[in-house]
């Protein structure tokens, strides 16, 4: 059976003054209707570039897709002419960006911006599009939508601006919604409201939700499956219920251990030594090997493949079975 959206061996590089940065090095994953997939990683892991590649909004050049396929409803988006690709954007796959203040245009009202896609893409007239914008604002729970439709982005709080972004993304009723760090710029109490709203909309419309984040807490609360990225690869993929209690990759395990405990201890936090690799010079073998506490000589020479373990979970580590059963 075809997945709604499937990435196969996606490879993206950026040509920079200092050389070629290998940003995505063979990313494969999929998401189905009604499902929430979290792409988790630190800065430079490639999670946002993955989203941009799916949306077709990479800056080419300096970026270049070297290999791979992005299958949406069975069609390879990378092989589509730009005109057809544009039809998928918004209607098929839509995106909510991290920083709503810079993603919105300051000189147009939010109503105009929400309605823009409707006017251009569905041919609704101005009045009908404006009415639909108010419906959408009500749906994302912006109080007093009929009046606020005429306000400008700066007149909204951070949480309300993120709701406007979500309303824009929903305008064309997409099948896949990508949310790139949608709550990172928001306060804790507002973050909870926005995550609730995203999940509610996903369930109501049967959308697939791809949540891009670095926050292990948010992922644990909302995702079905999680793909952990490191240096442009997925190093582990599993259901959240399998992954948190028993990580199969030393990087995932170290990330979970480096979070402060629920209860206060006087023990120092567990840290991951060193830094993520420079994408211009990724070390040979496993990209995590210089920071890995259990690396072998093999890990410095051979890139571990992503192998399937019990329950369908995936891990790319030469010692994954030992990590999983706790013996390494």
């Amino acid at each position, binding site marked *: 059976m075809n997945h709604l959206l499937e990435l196969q061996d996606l490879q993206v590089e950026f040509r920079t003054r200092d050389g070629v940065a290998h940003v995505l090095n063979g990313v494969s994953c999929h998401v189905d209707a009604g499902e929430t997939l979290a792409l988790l990683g*630190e*800065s430079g892991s490639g999670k946002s570039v993955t989203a941009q590649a799916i949306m077709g909004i990479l800056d080419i050049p300096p970026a270049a897709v070297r290999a791979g396929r992005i299958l949406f409803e069975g069609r390879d988006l990378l092989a589509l002419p730009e005109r057809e690709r544009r039809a998928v954007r918004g209607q098929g796959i839509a995106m909510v960006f991290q920083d709503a203040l810079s993603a919105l245009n300051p000189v147009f009202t939010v109503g105009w911006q929400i309605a823009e896609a409707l006017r251009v893409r569905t041919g609704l007239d101005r009045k009908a599009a404006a009415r639909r914008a108010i419906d959408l604002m009500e749906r994302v729970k912006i*109080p007093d939508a009929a009046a606020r439709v005429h306000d400008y982005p700066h007149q909204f*709080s*951070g*949480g*309300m601006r993120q709701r406007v972004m979500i309303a824009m993304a929903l305008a064309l009723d997409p099948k896949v919604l990508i949310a790139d760090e949608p709550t990172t710029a928001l*306060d*804790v*109490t*507002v*973050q*909870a*409201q926005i*995550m*609730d709203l995203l999940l509610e909309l996903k369930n109501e419309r049967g959308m697939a939700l791809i949540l891009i984040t*670095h*926050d*292990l*807490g*948010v*992922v*644990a*609360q909302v995702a079905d499956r999680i793909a952990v990225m490191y240096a442009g690869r997925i190093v582990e993929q599993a259901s*959240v*219920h399998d992954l*948190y*209690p028993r990580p199969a990759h030393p990087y995932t395990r*170290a*990330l*979970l251990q*480096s*979070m*402060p*405990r*629920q209860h*206060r201890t*006087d023990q*120092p*936090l*567990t*840290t*991951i030594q060193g*830094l*993520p690799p420079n994408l211009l010079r990724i070390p040979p073998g496993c990209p995590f090997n210089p920071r890995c506490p259990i690396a072998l000589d093999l890990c410095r020479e051979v890139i571990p493949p992503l192998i399937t373990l019990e329950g369908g979970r995936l891990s790319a580590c030469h010692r994954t079975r030992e990590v999983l059963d706790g013996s390494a």
Partner: protein
Amino acid sequence: MAAPDLDAPVAPLLEVRNLVKYFPIERGALLRRAAGQVKAVDGVSFQLARGETLGIVGESGCGKSTLARMLVRLETPTAGEALLDGRDIFAMRGEELTSLRRNMQMVMQDPYTSLNPRMTVGDIIGEPFEIHPDVVPRGARAARVRELLDLVGLSPEHIDRYPHQFSGGQRQRIGIARALALDPKIVACDEPVSALDVSIQAQVINLLEQLQARLGLALIFIAHDLSVVRHISDRVAVMYLGRIAETGPVEDIYNFPTHPYTQALLSAAPVADPARRDQSHVIRLEGDVPSPANPPSGCRFRTRCWKADERCAREEPQLAPSRGADAPGQLAACHYAAVSSTTG
């Protein structure tokens, strides 16, 4: 991180009394006239003991950064005092002020903008010695900078490098070394790890804890990340719209919060455990934080509070013991403060 001895009546290192900071709002390009005030900090009092860590948590606009900036005298308060070893820091002038600046240092949030890109690391960390030449004799400064680099876990050989040659975590170490250069008594850290990745955060938090134990520093640790604050703090103050909503020893506050805002804030923080997804009794606050230019009458939290009634609109609650003899150090500013049955 020795807990302060409650039995010994020791004078606190720092005592802040009723600190207030209003920023004027001006209208008009030509004839500027005052059109109101942003009440960023509006009557904050607390004490800090030697070697202690006070965590300050709250959402954006609650005044936590303004508070820190006043304590290092980057901002002048509208009213109130802060006594360091019994002397009001806001009354200090001249030499006394210079020596105050030695004793209170700050680590900034953003390691990318708080270091001058055109200065070497050695010049950045050594710059405090230009202003306080008596701390280290000129000839010994380079050696002291190397010592400081080593202290924060950077290689002393990197003294001639520029900030852009370092990663975010390393830059924050440079900021910490600069704050420690003058051997201060108090370091205020304003969101020191929020710009860093999770794996790097832990390194910087461990470093701060080590340094504190080794140097006997008192820390004021400002953050919005509740689990980080819990890890590092001895006591916590929860701020809302310019005032302290609740304060006390860290485990009392986290296990038995009594102010509705503290309860909501703690319950909204996502727990990194999918098994606790459905069991957590999450309190969902409605709406956003009101504008500090026009805070609600009475209790500032009442517009989002499920316990609020007309008394809360009328009378502003003051900090008072909220759990009696169970936790004498725990204070909450709420007419209806109580441990909730769903939290803790």
